[in-house]
């Protein structure tokens, strides 16, 4: 029983220059506890797809079931079961770390005392305890990202959507975030759907990759399977071959050393 399934999910934007088909029809199945990487060139429709799956943007075509509920008919039930961390996060510069975490809990219907306790628990879990009384603009990039993630995890969602979670992070912070995502899955069975441009990230973190280009799924496999299918030594080569952004390697035999 998949935790996410979509059929022909599509979104067309109307602009002054006519309709723009950002997502033409995505068919996707995600199993519970899976870490799914969504790859694709800029403008391929990754963010639009995530925004649809997280109820932020109504689809203009197709259907989807997320965490057991119909995306279009019952967005409120979907919202209770998912967490979402946008590409640029969502922190108010006027607030402290603590107040952001407590407010988030209360937005999910927790009582004040429950939300306060949960905020401290999350801060402890994500190494934010020392920073609880700091204003959000005083955080470093890595700390901000951990807070964004804590906000998305407040209500222990079944599915966590991450839009380019490690863009702009230093190597240490990236490694921390990878470890955290793995830990979420291993300890809580959380399903994670993430988009990324870093192919090393996709390679080491994701169980399965879905490559999106021009608004449709063009390839779907495990990182190893994707490389094998295109006779590529690296995921980078496989990605370029799939999206037609570069020549597929002519000689598929590994270089002898």
């Amino acid at each position, binding site marked *: 029983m998949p935790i996410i399934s979509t059929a022909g999910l599509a979104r067309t934007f109307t602009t002054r220059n006519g309709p723009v088909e950002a997502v033409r029809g995505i068919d996707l199945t995600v199993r519970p506890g899976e870490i799914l990487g969504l790859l694709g060139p800029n403008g391929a429709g990754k963010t639009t797809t995530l925004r649809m799956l997280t*109820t932020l943007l109504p689809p203009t075509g197709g259907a989807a079931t997320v965490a057991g509920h119909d995306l279009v008919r019952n967005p409120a039930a979907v919202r209770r079961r*998912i967490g*979402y961390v946008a590409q640029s996060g969502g*922190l108010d*510069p006027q607030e402290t770390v603590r107040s952001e975490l407590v407010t988030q809990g209360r*937005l999910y219907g927790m009582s004040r005392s429950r939300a306060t306790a949960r905020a401290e628990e999350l801060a402890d879990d994500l190494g934010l305890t020392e920073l609880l009384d700091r204003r959000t603009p005083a955080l470093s990039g890595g700390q901000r990202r951990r807070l964004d993630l804590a906000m998305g995890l407040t209500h222990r969602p079944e599915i966590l959507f991450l839009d380019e979670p490690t863009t702009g992070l230093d190597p240490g912070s990236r490694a921390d975030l990878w470890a955290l995502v793995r830990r979420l899955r291993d300890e809580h069975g959380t399903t994670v759907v993430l988009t990324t441009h870093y192919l090393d990230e996709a390679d080491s973190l994701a169980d399965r990759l879905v490559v999106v280009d021009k608004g449709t799924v063009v390839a779907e496999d495990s990182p190893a399977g994707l490389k094998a299918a295109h006779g590529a030594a690296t995921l980078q080569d496989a990605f370029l071959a799939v999206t037609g952004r570069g020549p597929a390697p002519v000689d598929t035999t590994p270089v002898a050393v």
Partner: protein
Amino acid sequence: MLLHDTALLFGRYARQTLRSPFQIFFGALMPLLYLLLFGPLLTGLPLGGEGDSWQILVPGLLLQLGLFGASFAGFSIIMEKNWGVFDRMRVTPVSRLALLLGRVLRDAALFVFQAVLLVLVALPMGLRAPLAGILIGFGFVALLSVTLASLSYALALKLRTPQEFGPAINTLAMPAMLLSGLMLPMTLAPCWLDVLSRLMPFRHLVDAVREAYIGHYTTPTLLYGVLVALGVAALAVTVGTRTFQKAIA
């Protein structure tokens, strides 16, 4: 759910406002300057009607405060959209209507507070009005703030670029101020202007507050003002709600 979420968001926005004395006091500055530097010019002039010049000017300034303050309220939602805070809240199951009402109620509270400040400064300058009339005036400030803030948030959600927002609001607020006779009563106007100004709903609000400031609580002017104020507030909240629910379903 709606009540809980509205109270939660009202609290968040009210605390943000309280942390910014600049926002609290600066908004009252323009009407205060009118009061201090323009008010004394009117004391000897024949303005028609009962009551002295302060009983005519102060009601106008109270509504000017609401008019210019609340109509720019939408800026805050543009900022929240840019920070990603708006989407972060929309992903939660929070009541969609509370996302509007929490803000609108904070705005109403802020502008009523500024109105109190304005009246306190006007008293030593010579304002004399019955307490009931002054309280009625605050009620009108609250209704006008709710009306304009709702419309402002709706407009801010609709506009594609924030750069359009300021000019759009200025273009709407200036004629609204002039046509409602906030500075001088429209009874001084030539016939055509008087007729034109009656089409501007806010004129009826100003006339009603002026009526209350001279202690006339049961006249048709006051009753009409109350009806218009409630009517436009209901309409604006409906438009705001619809826009919110459509734009952020």
